[in-house]
């Protein structure tokens, strides 16, 4: 299991240590312009660590194994660096995968899309294959952070980070994702349903890292609904629903229903999917789903929202998302029939 905080020393040491060997550190510039000579650079936020810019997946796997549980992979750094700056994470070595060739691709293999470990959010958001074959993922990307963060952050990094209020872990679960994990012991495939163990916790072994993630593409007549509520655009969600369905003979088929922000991990809700499967979306059905959700969800109360409010949001967002999915499936079926 990998836990994404407190790697060596546990949490709570967010302050700087005055004993740090390099507390009063001066960078020594070589061949720097005279105007830019290094001066005393003072304190640094992160605790010391070694750094390796791996140039191949096997080099990264070997370094991770050699680190014996004290190594951390860095991809976009958009979640890891804040924790390193707070000293919530103090790895002995950071293994940078950004320079490994070939991991920055989105490829279609049969009915699946494979997203490499250094594919940035910006690429996923603008990729033509994603837009055509998984429009719900295209929509979801607009809710992930901000332009500047999307320039660096990665799809796979977000899944590995396993924030319970993040979009990509939920989408990976919704799209029956398979996570390819590499270590010196070899590669293994982990089903998304086995991957998310808890808040910021995954079933990766300490010596494993992710090289790519495969997800379902959707038949072109699939309708989708994606509804998220957050306080400000780009903030993490208080609650979010993602659902897809097709209409066959006037009723919903292949129903998928996922949520996040309302538990310790992203959720797939088979009980809700079963209620909708084989039915036409109606006011009564939406009411039934709302009631069922109340019993199924056990959200937290925190500084952002109470558990009751989150349960209320869940019902509202579910109704909107299902209506959208039904409407889009109708439009797409009509377009396909015409």
């Amino acid at each position, binding site marked *: 299991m990998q836990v994404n905080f407190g790697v060596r020393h546990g949490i709570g040491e967010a302050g700087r240590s005055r004993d740090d060997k390099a507390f009063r550190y001066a960078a020594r510039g070589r061949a720097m312009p005279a105007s830019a000579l290094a001066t005393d650079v003072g304190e640094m936020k992160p605790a010391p660590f070694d750094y390796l810019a791996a140039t191949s997946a096997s080099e990264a796997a070997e370094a991770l194994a050699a680190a014996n549980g004290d190594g951390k992979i860095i991809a976009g750094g958009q979640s890891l*660096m804040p924790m390193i700056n707070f000293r919530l994470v103090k790895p002995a070595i950071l293994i940078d995968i950004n320079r490994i060739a070939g991991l920055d691709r989105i490829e279609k293999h049969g009915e699946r899309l494979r997203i490499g470990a250094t594919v940035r959010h910006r690429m996923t958001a603008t990729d033509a294959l994603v837009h055509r074959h998984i429009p719900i993922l295209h929509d979801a990307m607009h809710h992930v952070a901000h332009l500047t963060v999307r320039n660096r952050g990665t799809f796979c990094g977000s899944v590995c980070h396993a924030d319970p209020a993040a979009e990509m872990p939920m989408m990976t679960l919704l799209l029956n994702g398979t996570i390819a994990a590499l270590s010196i012991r070899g590669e293994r495939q982990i089903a998304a349903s086995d991957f998310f163990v808890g808040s910021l916790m995954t079933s990766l072994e300490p010596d494993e890292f992710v090289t790519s993630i495969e997800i379902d593409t959707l038949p072109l007549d699939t309708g989708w609904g994606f509804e998220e509520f957050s306080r400000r655009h780009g903030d993490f969600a208080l609650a979010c629903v993602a659902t897809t369905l097709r209409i066959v003979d006037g009723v919903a088929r292949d129903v998928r229903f996922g949520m996040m922000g309302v538990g310790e991990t992203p959720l797939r809700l088979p009980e809700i999917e079963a209620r909708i499967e084989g039915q036409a979306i109606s006011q009564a059905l939406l009411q039934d789903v709302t009631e069922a959700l109340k019993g199924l969800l056990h959200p937290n109360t925190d500084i952002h929202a109470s558990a009751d409010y989150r349960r209320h949001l869940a019902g509202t967002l579910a109704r909107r998302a299902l209506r959208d999915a039904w409407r889009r499936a109708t439009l797409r079926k009509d377009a396909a029939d015409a």
Partner: protein
Amino acid sequence: MPEKKITLSVSVNGVVHTATVEPRMLLSDFLRHALGLTGTHVGCEHGVCGACTVLLDGRSARSCLMLAVQAEGAEIETVEGQGSVDRLGRIQEAFRQHHALQCGFCTPGFIMAITDMLRHHPLETDDQIREALSGNICRCTGYEHIVNAVRELAKERGPLT
């Protein structure tokens, strides 16, 4: 004890710098303390405020969420590359005209993010402009004047080809 130092070479506003640094040195600290380029500001140092935004190979990036050593071989642009007090850059000039700054703390980050936006994003509607600006926080202006400046710049640029 870890922290083996690493030598890096990085281009900042077209000037190549070579330096030997601890791996844990943030790019923001490298720019400010090692190179003396204090135009790049740091507010939160955990990715939330956008004050530290620079361009990394032409795209905006939070310099507080990057290590200096990760910039090896990259081209960094900072606000110092935009213009000077005597010769303001185009975005700086638009900010001045539209009163898009008060204390100015957030301004370098906004200007670098806007540089990326103008190169790569449609910015045809106010909604698009506001969404694009949403990663940068300003405590003074209430954003209205910043949106006005970007609207003018986007109009001047015309549609993206």
